[in-house]
C-alpha cells in the first residue's frame, strides 16, 4: 500500500498538525477577524474541504487565531480574483474578485511603512 507523496511535508504540513475541515474554516474566519478581508466570509473557498461558508466559527475562536498566527494574503491573480491565504500551516485559495480588488486598491493607496 502506498502512502506519502513527496514527503509528509509536501502534501501540506506535518501530519500531526494537518488541519481538518474545521481548522481550515477557522483559518478563514481568522482572516476576517484580522480585518484583511471584509467580504471574504461570503467568498468561495477553492481549497478542499473549505467550500462551506465559515460562519459557523465563533468570534472567540477567530480572535484567538488572529492573536497567535500571522495571516498572509497573496493576490495570485487580480484579474480572476484568486487570493492565496496563509495561516498557521494552512493554505487556502479563494476566488473573490471583490477581495482581490480591495487588496489591490489598498496596496496602491497605502503609504509605505
Amino acid at each position: 500500500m502506498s502512502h506519502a507523496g513527496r514527503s509528509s511535508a509536501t502534501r501540506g504540513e506535518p501530519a500531526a498538525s494537518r488541519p481538518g475541515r474545521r481548522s481550515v474554516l477557522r483559518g478563514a474566519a481568522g482572516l476576517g477577524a484580522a480585518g484583511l478581508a471584509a467580504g471574504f466570509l461570503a467568498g468561495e473557498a477553492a481549497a478542499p474541504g473549505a467550500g462551506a461558508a465559515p460562519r459557523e466559527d465563533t468570534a472567540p475562536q477567530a480572535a484567538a487565531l488572529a492573536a497567535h498566527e500571522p495571516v498572509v494574503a497573496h493576490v495570485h491573480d487580480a484579474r480572476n480574483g484568486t487570493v492565496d491565504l496563509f495561516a498557521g500551516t494552512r493554505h487556502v485559495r479563494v476566488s473573490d474578485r471583490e477581495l482581490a480588488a480591495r487588496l489591490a486598491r489598498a496596496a496602491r493607496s497605502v503609504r509605505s511603512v
Partner: protein
Amino acid sequence: MSSHREAPGISKDPVADSTDVYAFVSPDQPGTVTLIANYVPLQAPAGGPNFYEFGSDVLYEIHVDNNGDGRAEVTYQFRFRTDVRDKNTFLYNTGPIHALNSHDWNRRQFYSVTRIDGGTNAHALGSGLACPPCNIGPLSTPHYPALAAAAVHDLGGGRRVFAGQRAEGFYVDLGSIFDLGDLRPFASAHAHYGLAKYPVNGPGVNATKNLNVHSIALQVPISDLTRDGWAGAVVSDPRAVVGVWTSASRQRVRLFDAERATILSSGPFDQVSRLGNPLVNEVIIPMGSKDYWNTQAPADDKQFASYVARPELASLLPSLYPGVFPHLAALNASGKPRADLEAILLTGIPAGLISGFQNYTGATEADMLRLNTAIKPTATPSIYGLLGGDLAGFPNGRRVWDDVVAIELRAVAGATHALVNKSYTPDAAASAVTDGLTPADLDVPYLRSFPYLGVPHSGFAVPAS
C-alpha cells in the same frame, strides 16, 4: 560534496541543507538500524558568538520506503525550538556548561520526534529532548564527550535519538574535484588544459578535516522499518530491503517583520532539500534542475533517470584523463544506458549480480539509500563497501566511514558495468580512481557506538578552518 551546498537554492539556506544521510545495521546493536541525517554544513568550530543550531522554522524528516514505491511508509519528523535564558547578554554561555540544564548556558535547543505511519498516523516518540551545546572550548564546554553523551535520549523499545553537533565524518578533496577534476593522486595523467599547473601526483587533501555539522541520529529496531515488521536473516527476502532518504521543508510564506526584527512563517511546509544516495544531486543532476530536484519525491525520479543512465561525469573522465579510460570512452560512444548505475542508484541491485546480495526494491526508479537489513555488520569492513567485497557497506545502505566518493567515482568510471554487461572489461584505472583520502585523513575518530559520528571539533582547538 556528498550533498553540501549541492544546489544553488539550498546553498543559501544552510540550516535546511541536507548534507549526508547514513543508514546501516548498527555494528554494536545488530538488531537495530541507525539512521543519521546531517544538516548545516561546513561549520567552522570557532563560529561564535552565534554558534550553529538547527532551524526552529524547519521541518526535518527521515523517510523510509518499505514496499519499493519510492514513497514513505514510515517518516520520522523532528521539530526544534530555541530557548534563550537571558536576552540581555551577548553570550552563548556565561560560564562553563557542565550539564544540559546548566544555568550558564544561555541559548539551548529542544526537539520533538514524531513517527508518521502511512503518511497520516502520527505517534509522538519524544518531546522536550535536549540538544547538546556546540563544542566551544575547554572553558565553556569542559568534558564535552560526556556532555554530548547525556544528550543521547532513550525513547523506549530499544530506540535512541541524538540531535546536535558532530565532527564532519565525510571526507573529500573538494579542492581538487572542483578544480576541473584534478584528482591529486592522478594529477600527472590529467590533461590540465595545457596549463600544467599541478603535474605531480600527490596525496589527497581533506577539505572537511576540521569542520563540524549538525546531526540527527536515530536508532530503532529493524522491525520498526521493514514491511510487516520483518526482521529475518534471509538476504533474498524482498522484505529485508528498505529505502531511506531525508528532507527538509519550510513553510510556503516567509515574511520579514522589520518592526519585530523577526521572520514570520506561514502556510504548508514545502520540501526544499532532500538526499538519498550521496552525490546524486551534486554531480549527476544538471544545474538547471538541481533546485527542482530538491522539491521532488523519490517516487517521481523517473524524470531524472536519463541523467543517471548517461552521466555527464562519465563523459568527462576520458577527456580529463586522455588515454586512461578508453573502454569507458567506447561505452560512452555506444550511447547505451548505464544499467549498472541505474541499479545502484535508482532501483537497487537485483539478486544474481553479486553473490549473496540484493537490495532491489522493484522497477520504480527512485533515489534512495537501499539497505538490506538481513546483512549483518562485518568485523572487517572495507571502506569501499560492495566494491571492496563488503556486503554491509555502500551501496548497501551507507556507513559513516564508507568512501562514497571513491565508490561512486569508480562506478561511474565503469568498474561496475561488467555486472550488467559481461562482455565489458573495465579500464584498469576504473578500480583505482580516488581522491586519495581515507578515514585516516580525519582528525577526529568515529565513535564505536551511537551516534557513531565523532566528537565535534572545539572552537578553541580549531580557531581557523
